[in-house]
């Protein structure tokens, strides 16, 4: 099943759901409740839950080998320089589980608890990510930001989004959600621009391109082992 973390409501994610002709449950999470409860700090992420409701693999970047995202964003058209730069950085992102993640899921589907990819309770908790009072405070600020944003109080929401970013610097989802709301160029690239546009004030201290250059693309997803 899928959970779409999107504060702007169903219309943003719906085209993707329809294009995929999904037969599994497709849920919408405007408040990022799932991310808070399962420890998701960047997307896409997967969590494995067994028949009895026990988590056997916590949130992790389970996604296939990197693909040429420029094709889905801009086709063969020439990309704006910022998007070309974004694509260059994105190509350096490491998909720690790229090799074999789908096979690991198939193995679990076949073998259940005896699959070698099922983790012990200790491993599940240890791999679920650190949580501190600071990151808890970030989540509370994000919740307020989301309510203000969906209530039409965009300028009031920005302070709380920024606080969430400051308190939980490793949480890319908080940043990507807020930055993508600002928009950028018109068209299909708008949500992926996530940074300043000439002639418009940018309300955040950082943006996707600056941030990934500063932190390093290899840190974009938490390093894990299958």
């Amino acid at each position, binding site marked *: 099943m899928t959970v779409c973390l999107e504060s702007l409501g169903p219309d943003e994610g719906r085209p993707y759901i329809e294009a995929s002709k999904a037969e599994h449950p497709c849920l919408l999470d405007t408040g990022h409740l799932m991310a808070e409860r399962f420890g998701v700090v960047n997307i896409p992420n997967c969590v494995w839950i067994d028949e009895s409701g026990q988590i056997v693999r916590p949130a992790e970047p389970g996604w296939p080998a990197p693909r040429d995202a420029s094709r889905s964003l801009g086709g063969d058209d020439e990309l704006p320089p910022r998007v070309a730069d974004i694509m260059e950085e994105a190509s350096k992102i490491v998909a720690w589980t790229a090799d074999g993640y789908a096979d690991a899921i198939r193995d679990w589907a076949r073998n259940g608890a005896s699959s070698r990819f099922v983790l012990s309770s200790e491993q599940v908790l240890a791999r679920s990510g650190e*949580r501190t009072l600071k990151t808890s405070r970030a989540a509370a600020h994000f919740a307020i930001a989301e309510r203000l944003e969906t209530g039409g109080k965009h300028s009031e929401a920005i302070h709380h989004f920024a606080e969430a970013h400051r308190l939980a610097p490793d949480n890319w989802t908080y940043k990507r959600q807020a930055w993508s709301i600002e928009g950028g160029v018109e068209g299909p690239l708008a949500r992926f621009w996530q940074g300043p546009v000439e002639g418009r004030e940018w309300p955040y201290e950082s943006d996707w391109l600056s941030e990934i250059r500063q932190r390093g693309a290899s840190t974009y997803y938490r390093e894990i082992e299958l």
Partner: protein
Amino acid sequence: MLLADKNPTVQDFAAATSWTIEQRGACQGELCVPLAPGTLNDGRVDLTLAADRLGMAVVEDADAGLVAVGPATFAGSALSSTACPDLVLPTFDGDDFDLRSLRGQRVVLVAWAPY
């Protein structure tokens, strides 16, 4: 998650945090954390006391009239136990879907976003 105020009902607190407040403590599945005396009064939760014991941050925006509570941190990790947290969210068709309805099956939960 958001709460109406700092003295929510047990039901509202559970919906916001996935922790149920009972006489024996704050519980999530088999895990129960003892609470300070006075936390539970007539079906309402003293948010400050409960949040302090569970290591939850409370943020208030008085101008907006909003109170939010962050997730529990006493365990030091995002998951306090391997028990799957409760999760009820709408589908894209607008119907509520309860993750519990998939008990008995293996589930891969995929988080994604269009940005």
